[in-house]
């Protein structure tokens, strides 16, 4: 197993290097750079040129690439032209906020999507199946921004059940000491249950917004995977010899259907990190999505580059995690890897 992990991480590293190279060149195809914006409306041509020089944008592409690779090898992602701060620090300050939002959104989407997908498969062709599929269609066609605005208007403005869209925590609330960066988990670790409650309240609306949309693909893939598994001989045999439905579904059907479902959930999680921009913007969530949006608006090359690279790395690592989860779910994958390592 450990051999498999090492091999996967090595492959992942090579993929990350490839992503880093591609990101560098793709970002430089984008029009404009932030020097003019950074210089401001009172700037002279000399001042703009000086800023470009300060940020290395006057060098040849090859020189810029060498500097980029050297900085990357030291974990540096450059300097934001908009804020003047180092991009690595800025991204890692914001990453926990995005990860926490993505994690709970995917979790809730899975809690909704898995049972509904299974129900739809089991009750195929019946009313329950049609209702679940209708729900999935609504979820996949729902505009995230519109849904978010609607939920804020209803639950915050009209009903007053939810706090306002001001980020992760109420104004003036002290955050728990940072251990994981997830406010909920950190509050739990440090026994700050009032803070945990507050964090959950602020997470609720953005998580519901995202999970409503995310549950759609999970429902669909679960339905298909469970349907395929239900049609397998060993399942039909188990049913015929009187194995209880709950045992059958949980122990046999889900185990066999899990691989495509886990893959979808992993892809959805990776997508969340890159695609959270709208929700982070709407809910004033201080995550990497909002950072990326501002960077793009300001043609902040290093910040855009850093964000794309970070998301790429997380995607690659997520795939490693998924492969690991496969081993846990499917013994054939584990045994295959053990044989390879002998």
């Amino acid at each position, binding site marked *: 197993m450990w051999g498999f992990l090492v091999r996967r991480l090595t492959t992942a590293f090579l993929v990350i290097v490839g992503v880093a190279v591609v990101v560098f060149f793709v970002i430089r195809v984008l029009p*404009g750079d932030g020097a003019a914006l950074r210089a401001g409306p009172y700037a*002279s041509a000399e001042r703009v040129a000086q800023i470009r020089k300060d940020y290395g944008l006057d060098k040849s592409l090859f020189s810029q690439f060498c500097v980029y690779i050297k900085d990357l090898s030291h974990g540096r992602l450059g300097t934001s032209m908009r804020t003047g701060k180092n991009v690595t620090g800025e991204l890692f300050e914001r*990453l926990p906020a995005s990860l926490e939002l993505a994690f709970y959104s995917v979790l809730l989407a899975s809690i909704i999507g898995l049972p509904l997908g299974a129900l739809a498969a089991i009750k195929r062709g019946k009313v329950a199946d049609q209702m679940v599929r209708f729900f999935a269609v609504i979820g996949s066609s729902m505009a995230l921004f519109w849904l978010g605005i609607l939920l804020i208007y209803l639950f915050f*403005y009209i009903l007053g059940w939810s706090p*306002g*869209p001001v980020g992760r925590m109420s104004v003036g609330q002290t955050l728990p000491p940072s251990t994981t960066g997830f406010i909920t988990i950190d509050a739990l670790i440090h026994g700050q249950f009032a803070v945990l409650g507050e964090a959950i309240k602020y997470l609720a609306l953005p998580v519901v917004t995202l999970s409503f949309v995310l549950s759609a693909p999970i429902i669909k893939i679960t339905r298909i995977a469970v349907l395929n598994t239900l049609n397998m001989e060993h399942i039909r045999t188990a049913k015929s010899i009187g194995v209880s439905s709950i045992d059958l579904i949980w122990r046999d059907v889900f185990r066999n259907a899990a691989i495509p479902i886990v893959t979808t959930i992993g892809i959805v999680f990776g997508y969340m990190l890159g695609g959270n921009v709208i929700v982070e913007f709407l809910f004033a969530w201080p995550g990497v999505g909002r950072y990326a949006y501002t960077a793009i*608006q300001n043609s902040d090359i290093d910040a855009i580059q850093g964000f794309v690279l970070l998301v790429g790395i997380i995607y690659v690592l997520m795939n490693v995690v998924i492969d690991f989860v496969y081993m846990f779910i499917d013994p054939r994958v584990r045994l295959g890897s053990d044989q390879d390592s002998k």
Partner: protein
Amino acid sequence: MSNKNLKIKQLVAVAILVIALGACSSSSPSSDSGATDTAVATADTTAGVASTELVVALSDTTNMIELHSFKSTAAYSITKSLYEPLLRQKFETRDDGLQVGTLEHEGAGAESYTVEVSPAGGFVATFKLRANAKFSDGSPVTAADYKYTFDRSIKGPGYIGLLLPFIGVDSVDQIKVVDDLTLEITTKVQSPLFERFMTFQVFGAINKKVAEANKTADDEWSFKYFETNAAGSGPYMIDTYDPENGIVLVPNPGYWDAANVKNTKVTVLAVPDASQRALLLQKGELDLADGLPPKMVTDLLADPNVKVYKSASSGVNYLAMNVGVKPFDNQAFRQAILYAVPYEGIISGVMYGFAAPANGVVSTSMETYDSAIGAGYKTDLEMAKKKLLESKVDVSKLTIPLAVRESRLDDQAAAVLIQDGLRAIGVNVEVQILPDGDFATKQNANELPLQIHDWSSWGEDPFYQMKFLTSCGSFVNYSRFCSKDYDKLIAEGIFSTDKAVRQAASSKAQQIFVDQAPWAPLWSADRTVVVKSCVTGVDRDYTLVAGFSKLNKENCK
């Protein structure tokens, strides 16, 4: 090892890997700033007792607080609160309670001052500083600190050095420390802008000792340090610097006018979506919301829980035609465009009445604005067609790109109306919405034949505005308009204190500008601020930047 134990270990390993991704950082603010997640009291803690703590959300996010760098609008509100210039405007209170800055000034960082004509024909200004003024770290404010600020403006890498020649200062030798509490500034010209400039936050005292303690070999003026730190003597100091979550300002105990700071804390939240800012304000979770679009402000007028303050501004949004690019090198063609622009439609349909007609390069609220000339900007499709014929430009196969910035929704809406107006005379326009960075780069590279841009002159001086926006060779003259006669008139008026001379020069310049038509001036947006209805003390100064020190919640329960 049993299968079950192996599975549990694998599950734990996966969980650790996932949590490790999130644990690779801290959620606390950057250590550069020295700011902490210190506990602060929540607002409105006791029922029936007015809170003195404010929660505000501005039009954008603070990107840095370096005083002499160009930065976001929110950042200017922060630095205004942190740094104290030598002078400030006197204010008058309107019937609705808005405090409007006048053209008269009084001492701020300076307890008293004199401005006299120097033998060389410029000014000699002597400022006596307040003995009781202190920086946020408790150290006294001295003339050396103000000298340091001016020297930094002139010699540092910021943009402020471009402004000082407007008051005839271009050398550090013109700023003299007479003694610890006396500063002398000599100017080469007698500029009517001199006192106004002395009210600008960018000339607020920076603590020289702190600055010099944080300089490096590459950064002589500590620009890097001040991007996330402050060392000012203004009404506030930073308690927490976390632009993404909330910047907390608390009163500077050493501020000379601390008794008149009407609140005990200001939390500046980053709420990027304007509609959410409006909702938060209506629900009472914000005390002030800035940067709300005109349509939203119109809707808020009917809400008794909020109050809208509006005042005229001298800012101008304009349609710039690049006279160096065909067909805009043709004067008659430009005049045709001028007559086809739907000015009134833009003010009512885009700005919902929260704007005045711009009517020229000199804004309608500025001194020397000539209304007889400004009336020349009007929609007249017949005249537009006549001018188009006169120009002999064949527009049948022409499509002109009109560039607007992605962040400016009002500009985009105006562009659509302009496109429609020009289509009515047979000119095809394609609206191009560009990311702000791309727009700025193309603008500087002279690649935009037609664009919508805006400008606001802090000093509200017509010649300052004309010089920057429309004089030959000016970097921000995006229409690339150049007229020697026009520049000569600017030179006549810019350093004159004679009102008649200034009026005459300005009127002639305005006439040339209308005739040559490099611009269609679209609107001068009103300065609007929306607050909770119980909040008082809203003010409006030269800079139109939101200030906090006068904001008062004593009527709020």
